[in-house]
Structure formats: structure tokens, C-alpha cells
């Protein structure tokens, strides 16, 4: 390799944008095949190809940063901006669902019995599992910060333990939400209450699962000595994402579980 006289990262040619695009084509065509001909083969192949693409693409990014040293402070700055913009886009994604919720609940239509919660809906008690879930997520926000400070001070054992606790709390939240969904006395088909409730909390749950996966990758990288005291942006991005998921839950709890009941 020739000597590089700048701090930018010129990437190697990569097959993953192509395989990812074909995976997206297979998934959309696969959905059409499933809906019209009841065949799931193409959809499943598309999902599998997307999974292979995601794993290998992110594996390569870890190689480029930890093993090849391409993530200079300047490159990291670009990643910071990218992650910030991504989280802002996610904020607006959730604003859409909150908009739908307040649109339906602030002026309930005659079809709903002109009241919120709508006539015939028994909402969940916000002071039972939802309050526990709030405590669980807030606690996980504390442990992820603890882990970050441990990484910055080079305390490997402590960082690993704190991160493990964060992931456990994330899994506990998911488990509690599963019970709550199972026990819920209304369904997604029960008026705008059911649809706004399950779409908003369901997408939040999906984001918790994604965040838990992100943190688990960070735990594996931490155990494999990938993070240094001054360079661990993968962890920081995961922590930002986790805090975002935490804040969305607080709004869901206040709006849908507490005020909405």
C-alpha cells in the first residue's frame, strides 16, 4: 500500500451495497408472492440475504476501524454527524405515531363514544408493569453511563459487567412487554386506541431489540479488546441510541399509558 498523506478513509470496493439492494428487491417481490400466491420462499431467501449482507458489512467496518486504523478523528467526526442525523430521523418517525395518538385522543370522534379511552376499552394500569418498565429502562440508562466511564478509565472488568447489566435490563424490559401484550384486554383491531397503542409501543419494542443487539455487539467487542480509553465510538453510538430509546419510552409512558388511560 502506498503512503497516505491525508486523514480521510478511502474505502475498498465492496459488494455489500449490491447484495443489500438485491436482498431488498427479493424481500419486496417476496412479499408480493406471499400475498398473492401464498409462497414464502422468495421472502425468506431475501431476509436471509439481507442478514448475510448486514453481518458482513458491519464486520468489515469493525475490521477497517480496529484492525486497519482507518477511523481517524476526522472520520469519527463524520460518524458522529451521521449517527446524530440518524437519531433525529428516528425522532421524527416516532413523532408521527404520537401525532396519530393525540389526533385520535384529544378530540375523540362519536364512533369512539366521544371519550378517551374509547367506549368499551379497558386500558392497562400504568402503575403496574409499565411503571416497572420505566424503572428498568432508567436503570439501564445509568448502567450504560457507568460502563462508558469504566471504558474511559480503562477499567475492563467494570465496563464488561456494567454493559452486561445494561443488556440484561434490556432483555428484562422485552420480557415484561411480551407479558403485557399477552395480557392486554384489547387488540390492535380495537379502534384507534388499539392501533395507536400497538403501533407506537410495538415500534418502540422493535427499537429496544435493535438497541439490545447493538449493545451486545459492543459487549463482544469490549471482551475482545476492541475499545481503547480514547477510541470507542461504536460504544458511544450504541449508548446514544439506547438513551434515545429510553426517552421515547418516557414519552410513551406519560402519553399513552398514563395520560391516555
Amino acid at each position: 500500500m502506498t503512503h497516505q498523506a491525508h486523514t480521510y478513509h478511502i474505502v475498498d470496493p465492496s459488494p455489500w451495497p449490491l447484495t443489500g439492494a438485491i436482498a431488498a428487491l427479493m424481500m419486496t417481490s417476496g412479499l408480493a408472492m406471499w400475498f398473492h400466491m401464498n409462497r414464502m420462499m422468495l421472502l425468506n431467501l431475501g431476509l436471509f440475504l439481507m442478514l448475510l449482507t448486514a453481518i458482513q458489512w458491519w464486520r468489515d467496518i469493525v475490521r477497517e476501524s480496529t484492525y486497519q486504523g482507518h477511523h481517524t478523528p476526522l472520520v469519527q467526526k463524520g460518524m458522529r454527524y451521521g449517527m446524530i442525523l440518524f437519531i433525529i430521523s428516528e425522532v421524527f418517525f416516532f413523532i408521527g405515531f404520537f401525532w396519530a395518538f393525540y389526533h385520535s385522543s384529544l378530540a375523540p370522534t362519536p364512533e369512539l363514544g366521544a371519550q378517551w379511552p374509547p367506549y368499551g376499552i379497558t386500558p392497562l394500569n400504568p402503575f403496574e408493569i409499565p411503571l416497572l418498565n420505566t424503572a428498568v429502562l432508567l436503570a439501564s440508562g445509568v448502567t450504560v453511563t457507568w460502563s462508558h466511564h469504566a471504558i474511559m478509565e480503562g477499567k475492563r472488568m467494570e465496563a464488561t459487567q456494567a454493559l452486561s447489566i445494561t443488556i440484561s435490563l434490556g432483555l428484562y424490559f422485552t420480557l415484561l412487554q411480551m407479558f403485557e401484550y399477552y395480557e392486554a384486554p384489547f387488540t390492535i383491531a380495537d379502534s384507534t386506541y388499539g392501533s395507536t397503542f400497538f403501533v407506537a409501543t410495538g415500534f418502540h419494542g422493535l427499537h429496544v431489540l435493535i438497541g439490545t443487539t447493538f449493545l451486545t455487539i459492543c459487549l463482544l467487542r469490549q471482551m475482545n479488546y476492541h475499545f481503547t480509553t480514547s477510541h470507542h465510538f461504536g460504544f458511544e453510538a450504541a449508548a446514544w441510541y439506547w438513551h434515545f430509546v429510553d426517552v421515547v419510552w418516557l414519552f410513551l409512558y406519560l402519553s399513552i399509558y398514563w395520560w391516555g388511560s
Partner: protein
Amino acid sequence: MYYKFSGFTQRLVGAGASSAYTPQGFKPAVPMESPALIFGTPTKLASDSSSTVEYMGKNKVPELQKLFQKPDGVPVHLKRGVPDKLLYRTTMALTIGGTIYCLIALYMAAHPKRQK
């Protein structure tokens, strides 16, 4: 007025005397200076840093850094050899096969059987 180098903005920014000058022996919680710039290869290996207590397995990063920084012109997705090649070929085969399958499926969807 004191200045320090900001790792975030990549510029000199105003700072208090204490943060501009960190006395020897006191470790700042957040590093004041950004890490040294890395220019391509060869780069400083993590093994040069002080030894740490090892638990839960050996630190394999230095040897992997040597492997992945070998100047052999192989792109990063194939740099580890046979396992990489196998995974890449499986993915590529699925991509080509999937494209053909998609075309067939979309053709079939465009020509539904007439219902009598």
C-alpha cells in the same frame, strides 16, 4: 487566555488554565488531546501500549492488526482468506440466484391463470 485542541471540532478552542495544562501525575477523566493521526500503513500496534491484566481470553487485536494491514492489495471483505471467500461466494450465489428467481416470480405474477 488558554487554548486546547478540541478532538470534536478539530480546532483550537478556548479553555481554562487547568484544562489547557494537565499536571503530570494527574490523569484527566477525558483525554485533552485527540489521538495521533494514523496515516495508512504501517500504524502503531496496540501491543506497544502497556500490558494489561488479561482475563476472558487473550488480546488478539495486535496480531489481527498485522494480518489486516498486510499490503497485499486484497479488499477488506476477503482479507481473512478461505472463510471470507466461502461466505462471500455463498452471498454472491444467493444474490445472482435470487435475482433470477425474482424475475421468474414477477413474470408469473404478471401472467395470472385465467379463472373459468
